[in-house]
């Protein structure tokens, strides 16, 4: 077997460089429900950002903060609901719980990142789980995006309560979602793969009155 007996945690790169066809969590939904192209009248636009690297980071804030700064160059958001991005906005870390953070990086970086974090963290008590295949990121932009969210999530998305740099886990219709606000004009939904079709159909339906368009 490939495992060494001495290994404490077995990491595994589930991604391959080989040219293998991949299907994003929304691939089926596009075929089933269609994807109306955005028009000039679209007051909200949806776009999936598939195949990103998603890592769940567990551990104490102080220990993880040092490692994350060293490896990713950005601080770990220590305050609840915090969301930070690196300078070019490609990599983010979000507070999920007092001992849990969600790291999202460009697809393909996640395994190397996990290994570097593990190397820096050494014997500290922590855990890293790769969930890249299990969730996808859906962006919403446009002036009606906030109202669309009001139809969908129970959390208060008013700008006074949901400033840029915030992210929460909350109820979305009858499912759950991680909702984030990376910029003034953009909202992000981190959606579990198995709920992606339901979420997509809900958004298309709720967005109909705003002429929702899907960018592909």
């Amino acid at each position: 077997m490939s495992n060494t007996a001495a290994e404490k945690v077995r990491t595994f790169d589930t991604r391959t460089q080989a040219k293998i066809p991949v299907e994003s969590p929304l691939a089926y939904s596009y075929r089933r429900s269609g994807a109306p192209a955005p028009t000039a009248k679209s007051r909200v636009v949806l776009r999936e950002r598939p195949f990103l690297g998603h890592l769940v980071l567990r551990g104490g804030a102080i220990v993880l903060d040092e490692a994350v700064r060293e490896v990713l160059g950005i601080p770990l958001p220590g305050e609840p609901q915090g969301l930070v991005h690196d300078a070019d906005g490609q990599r983010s870390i979000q507070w999920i719980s007092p001992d849990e953070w969600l790291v999202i990086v460009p697809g393909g970086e996640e395994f190397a990142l996990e290994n570097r974090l593990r190397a820096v963290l050494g014997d500290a008590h922590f855990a890293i789980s790769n969930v890249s295949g299990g969730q996808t990121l859906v962006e919403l932009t446009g002036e009606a995006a906030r109202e669309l969210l009001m139809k969908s999530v129970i959390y208060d998305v008013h700008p006074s309560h949901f400033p840029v740099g915030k992210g929460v886990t909350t109820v979305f219709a009858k499912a759950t979602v991680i909702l984030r606000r990376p910029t003034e004009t953009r909202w992000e939904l981190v959606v579990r793969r198995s709920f992606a079709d339901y979420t997509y159909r809900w958004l298309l339906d709720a967005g109909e009155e705003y002429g929702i368009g899907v960018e592909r």
Partner: protein
Amino acid sequence: MLHIYCPYCGETREEEEFHPKGQAHIARPADPEACSDEEWGDYLFFRDNPRGIHHELWVHAVGCRKFFNVTRNTVTYEILETYKMGERPTITAEHPEGRPADATAQQTSLRDGVRA
């Protein structure tokens, strides 16, 4: 629908994000094998059902996934306080306006809160 302050998220959130898990501060006996059948039966099956102040265990299931305690009035449904695991309530049936300061200094136990 209740509005519940999650002591870990530092925010008041909608009830739909939470699950109630029964009475709080039910510690599992440290040595189950030393328990009589009656003691074990008490731990498994017997719970309080007070009219008024009650301490409950809740989990922020759609949120931070942390368990915490709620002091709730079962008549008015008012939530009087929420507190983290391992902490003691300040508001109790004996001290509905809050316990005297010295009493809160009692040693706290983390062994709180699971129901069978």
